């Protein structure tokens, strides 16, 4: 049975496919479901072999887990994609202008469009960035905007992920897997490639290098916290794919005014560091003195203009959940245009009236921690037990500033392959956006996360979500 409360991206009703899925549905009807199930199992073996696994925080026994992959692609038409592209480009430009302003003249605070408190009392604001203009003026080099769909033309931005969005390796590996398993589908359908992402990433980062690099091209490195980090696979995978150095704290030193890496031929300067280490750990000399993951002196070198740090320290102030509700104003303030993509209505629990509303309607709402991520510490009202609701109520009353609430969105569904055939499951979408001084580039594709449990609206991999390949059609 089709649940009409939710927009089904594959079906138009009466069993007919929606246009973007027409060719796929046609192909699917000619396949033997047993074969497809067998291929599903093969896909899992494939992922295990190449080693894409994922560490789940808070789970002792299953330190490395595989994120399940579903073989039914999520398909987006060219026309749909162009709207998303325009909307995200607008939003990302606004985010960069906002960051330049917040660490510069702070016009938006003086205009009264944003309460100063929101910045002043926010741990994501880094005083150390005040007055600092990063090379090329770019703050958010890599953005992973989380989108959800609720209808034919209804897309909402859920989160802006402007710090260190992960998941791009899944976009690339999912496609690789699909190409290997279903080559014939790719001859039947015009699916735009995603394989150029690593080269685009490298180009985009290089374009943001400080002007004084040695030799003919800037040296790019990925700084990883190390093998125990949940995204270590992605760090090493990306470094390999884009031809960048993979470095850890202990490989780096300040030499001759630059951050340099130890090689067998002595120290070599790094011009752009794509760091996958959080702000607080980045430099023990400027931030948390206890950090063993960072590079002492990198902020000094940065302020002197001798290295590009991607994303810039302090960008977290732009994707903070408390700030999210102001995004329509922020977009309008810096671009002079109305926001193309919708924002989910958000109640700020720090405000008394909102808190009252949230407490009265807790069972219908999604409540999130302002600084949380990965689906940890959130409450999905409709799915919560009475006990969970009352426990959360106590938390909300104790620390209302720490929470925002949103309506439970009717997330669209895309079918997954099950033993009983196709079955709809809720999805979201994270496209990956690259920003350089002259260009905002969005790879035609992204990471589709899918809640594998029937009826579940939580797609986070740490909460049992899976992934799908995302196809953008070349129409």
């Amino acid at each position, binding site marked *: 049975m089709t649940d009409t409360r939710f927009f089904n991206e594959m079906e138009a009703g009466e069993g007919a496919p929606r246009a973007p899925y027409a060719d796929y549905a046609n192909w699917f009807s000619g396949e033997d479901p047993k074969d497809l199930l067998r291929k599903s199992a093969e896909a899992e073996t494939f992922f295990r072999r190449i080693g894409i696994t994922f560490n789940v925080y808070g789970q002792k026994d299953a330190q490395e887990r595989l994120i399940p992959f579903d073989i039914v692609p999520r398909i987006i038409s060219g026309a749909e994609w162009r709207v998303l592209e325009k909307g995200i480009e607008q939003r990302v430009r606004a985010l960069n202008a906002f960051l330049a302003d917040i660490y510069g003249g702070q016009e938006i605070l003086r205009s009264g469009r944003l309460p100063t408190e929101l910045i*002043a*009392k926010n741990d994501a604001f880094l*005083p150390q960035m005040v*007055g*600092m203009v990063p090379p090329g003026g770019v703050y958010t080099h890599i953005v992973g905007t989380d989108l959800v769909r609720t209808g034919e033309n209804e897309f909402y931005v859920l989160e802006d992920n402007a710090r260190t969005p992960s998941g791009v390796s899944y976009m690339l590996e999912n496609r690789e897997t699909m190409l290997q398993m279903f080559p014939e589908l790719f001859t039947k359908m015009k699916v735009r490639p995603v394989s150029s992402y690593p080269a685009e990433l490298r180009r985009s980062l290089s374009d943001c290098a400080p002007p004084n690099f040695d030799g003919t091209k800037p040296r790019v490195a990925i700084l990883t916290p190390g093998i125990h980090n949940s995204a270590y696979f992605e760090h090493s995978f990306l470094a390999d794919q884009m031809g960048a150095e993979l470095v850890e704290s202990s490989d780096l030193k*300040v030499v001759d*005014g630059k951050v340099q890496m130890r090689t067998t031929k002595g120290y070599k300067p790094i011009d752009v560091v794509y760091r996958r280490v959080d702000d607080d750990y980045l430099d023990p*000399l400027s931030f948390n003195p206890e950090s063993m993951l960072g590079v002492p002196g990198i902020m000094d070198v940065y*302020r002197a203009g*001798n290295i590009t740090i991607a994303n810039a320290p302090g960008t977290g102030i732009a994707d903070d959940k408390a700030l999210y509700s102001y995004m329509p104003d922020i977009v309008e303030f810096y671009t002079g245009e109305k926001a193309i993509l919708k924002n989910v209505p958000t109640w700020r629990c720090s405000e008394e009236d909102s808190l009252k509303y949230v407490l009265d309607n807790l069972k219908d709402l999604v409540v999130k921690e302002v600084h949380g991520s990965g689906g940890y510490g959130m409450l999905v009202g409709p799915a919560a037990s009475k006990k969970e609701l009352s426990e959360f109520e106590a938390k909300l009353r104790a620390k209302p500033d720490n929470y925002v609430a949103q309506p439970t969105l009717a997330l669209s569904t895309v079918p997954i392959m099950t033993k009983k055939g196709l079955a709809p499951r809720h999805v979201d979408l994270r496209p990956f956006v690259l920003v350089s001084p002259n260009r905002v580039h969005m790879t035609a594709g992204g990471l589709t996360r899918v809640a594998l449990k029937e009826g579940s609206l939580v797609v986070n991999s740490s909460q049992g979500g899976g992934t799908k390949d995302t196809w953008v059609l070349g129409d």
Partner: protein
Amino acid sequence: MRLKISHTTTYSYDRPVDYALLQLRLTPRNGPGQTVLSWQSQVSGATQQVAYQDHFRNDVELVQMHEGGQTVTITSQGEVETENLNGVIGMVSKVPLWIYRSPTRATTAGPTVRKIAAQAREALAGNALAGVHELSSLVAEAVTYTKGETHVATTAEEAALAGKGVCQDQAHVLIAAARHLGLPARYVSGYLLLEGQTQQEAGHGWAEVHIDGLGWVGFDVSNAICPDDRYVRVAIGRDYGEAAPVRGLRQGDATEELCVSLQVQQ
């Protein structure tokens, strides 16, 4: 007044150090009440990596100790012409004022600091300047100047609880209390001419509190006055850590010995 300053800091280690970085904030700038006539800094045993202005517009140098070295000597000397402004620095602020309203780890008001602050509330409501003077003397009473009882990382609350500390601790307590009362406050590191005493053991530190209508006003709890023409401002920050003349980080477990030679004279 024309002040001549000569400041030498030597760090010695009991074994060779492979890698050490020092962040230096040792250069005074021209500003209200002071004109730098000449200033020179020299570092031996280490090499300058970068020089830049930080978020508070302090001049910063990052130097790296020579690999395998055992001593670093940092020498600053120069002449500064000063003028008595009775502590009033004025409206100059290069960063938004609210940055100085939030507590840092070292300047978070705990129960002891809050108690000191509460006693100044009434005076503060009448006249802000008089109120901060009152607060400053309350801090001097509550935290008596005592050497060797606290260390560089002692927080305002710890010092207030101990009731003892040096100029850094007294400034931290004043800053924490002022912020608790809603006033922007900051730390200043610098130099002070002491009457009849040319040789000093260490640089000086005091607080500045922002008062509506006046702007930044200096308060030296330790000497119970507002800084005059005997004071030279070198660096500012939200607390000592951000304004510290030297911040360092090194690999290995060598034992450090510090030797300071400081002369401030007319």
